[in-house]
């Protein structure tokens, strides 16, 4: 009698402790996430919006497998535990063609659906695809440096370091390169990331839904100051954007090739800077820096630029 009472109270204790632990875990998660921004699930740009939908669909499809797995796992483990003598014991049971067909077949179907979704979405959300819009796009050239980001507005001859001001509801067409080890340009609220690599120009497009401030980072380590490479994307109204351009054109900082070379030296904690661009075709020079054999620092003022725009494009490179 006493033994089974002890057993019962031990079982009760187990249930209570596990529930408390479970509650504590859930509580800890709630406490730590309350009020924090989740840009991947709560995006603010047309591209990231579509990526969020994609993520939710994938989870939904995955749940079709995961939930049955958990239910079966616990139900079967509980029912056929050694203490339960009522359950049938069939030690020679070695398989079931029907069940095999089910669990080869259903995941196959789910993956087939997901595969179709993948094919469609991968093409639709190809970072090299331009965003269709009646508004004219704003071009921005991005250069990853050690350990800051340089943004060049080639049509406006403005450049910034560590911040990007953009007009809302306007497609932003980014060309991305690096003058540093491999980096990854990522603004989760607006779009997924793309690698920034020397001697190459990758592409990305995004469009902010509304005015706001969105954080960006470099998702690939490039040395000591990698974690310093966060930057702000400020989406403002179109009028505010023109004002900002106008104001910036009065910036005392000039970005020539020489000032660029100084900027490109490794440094941490640069903060935000604004430049008027005086150097010609800076972005292409930076890309071409890595295309020439041997010589690296001299800008090329000849017409190599056309060659660059066609040849350095990363689209379709089958690697």
């Amino acid at each position, binding site marked *: 009698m006493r033994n089974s009472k002890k057993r019962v109270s031990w079982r009760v204790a187990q249930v209570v402790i596990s529930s408390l632990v479970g509650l504590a875990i859930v509580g800890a998660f709630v406490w730590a996430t309350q009020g924090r921004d989740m840009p991947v699930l709560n995006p603010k740009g047309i591209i990231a919006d579509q990526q969020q939908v994609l993520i939710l669909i994938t989870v939904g499809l995955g749940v079709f497998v995961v939930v049955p797995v958990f239910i079966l796992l616990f139900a079967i483990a509980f029912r056929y535990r050694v203490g339960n003598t009522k359950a049938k014991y069939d030690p020679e049971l070695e398989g079931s063609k029907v069940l095999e067909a089910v669990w080869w077949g259903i995941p196959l179907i789910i993956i087939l659906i997901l595969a179709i979704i993948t094919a469609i979405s991968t093409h639709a959300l190809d970072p090299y695809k331009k965003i269709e819009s009646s508004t004219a796009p704003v071009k921005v050239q991005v250069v990853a440096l050690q350990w800051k980001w340089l943004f060049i507005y080639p049509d406006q001859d403005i450049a910034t370091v560590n911040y990007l001001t953009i007009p809302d509801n306007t497609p932003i067409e980014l060309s991305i390169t690096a003058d540093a080890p491999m980096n990854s340009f990522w603004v989760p609220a607006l779009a997924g990331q793309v690698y920034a690599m020397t001697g190459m120009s990758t592409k990305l497009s995004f469009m902010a839904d509304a005015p706001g401030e969105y954080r960006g980072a470099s998702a690939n380590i490039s040395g000591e100051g990698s974690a310093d490479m966060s930057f702000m994307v400020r989406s403002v109204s179109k009028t505010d954007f023109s004002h900002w351009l106008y104001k910036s054109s009065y910036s005392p900082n000039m970005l020539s090739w020489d000032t660029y070379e100084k900027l490109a030296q490794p440094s941490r904690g640069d903060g935000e800077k604004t430049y008027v661009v005086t150097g010609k075709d800076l972005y292409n020079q930076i890309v071409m820096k890595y295309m*020439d*054999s*041997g010589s690296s620092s001299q800008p090329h003022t000849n017409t190599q630029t056309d060659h660059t725009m066609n040849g350095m494009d990363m689209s379709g490179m089958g*690697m």
Partner: protein
Amino acid sequence: MDISRQKAEQETLQRKSIGFWIYLMTDCVLFATLFAVFAVLRPGTAGGPSGADIFDLPFVLVETMVLLVSSFTVGLGLLAARYGYKRQAIAWLVVTFLLGITFLVMEISEFRHLIAEGDGWQRSAFLSSYFTLVATHGLHIAVGLLWMLVVIIRLIRFNFKHTDLGRLSLLSLFWHFLDVIWIFIFSIVYLMGSLS
């Protein structure tokens, strides 16, 4: 030696043979990787020479013939050993060894010439991958030659046991394998390189 011991030894030899074939397969993957690297980096001449500029096809053809003949002679050496003709076996192996040395000397002279012209491995990605692929093969040849030396010395000093015969047949397998790899190098690197 009793029957079960003999059987065990046979099984061991068979296992070693299978193990060696499998090792050759992994070596294949190794060379395949180097070929892939070569294929990707071949256009990366960085303003320096391409294959057409530096390859001396007649010279390489002689190298290839030397290696092919050495494959033939190692086969003769193995046959002689299998039939118990110790002197012939050693002779053919020595000839193979000398042919192998000739191959290596020719290859090294080709390399030295290129380096002297300023077209060493530092010049471009193409040259880096060319030198590495060909030199890796050359390194394998060198290992094969060392192995051959050891086999020759053992043949001279001790009469063959089946372990020595086993080692010799694995060596000849290795040698043929290197020959096949060389054919690929010759075709893909030298021939195709000269055509572009």
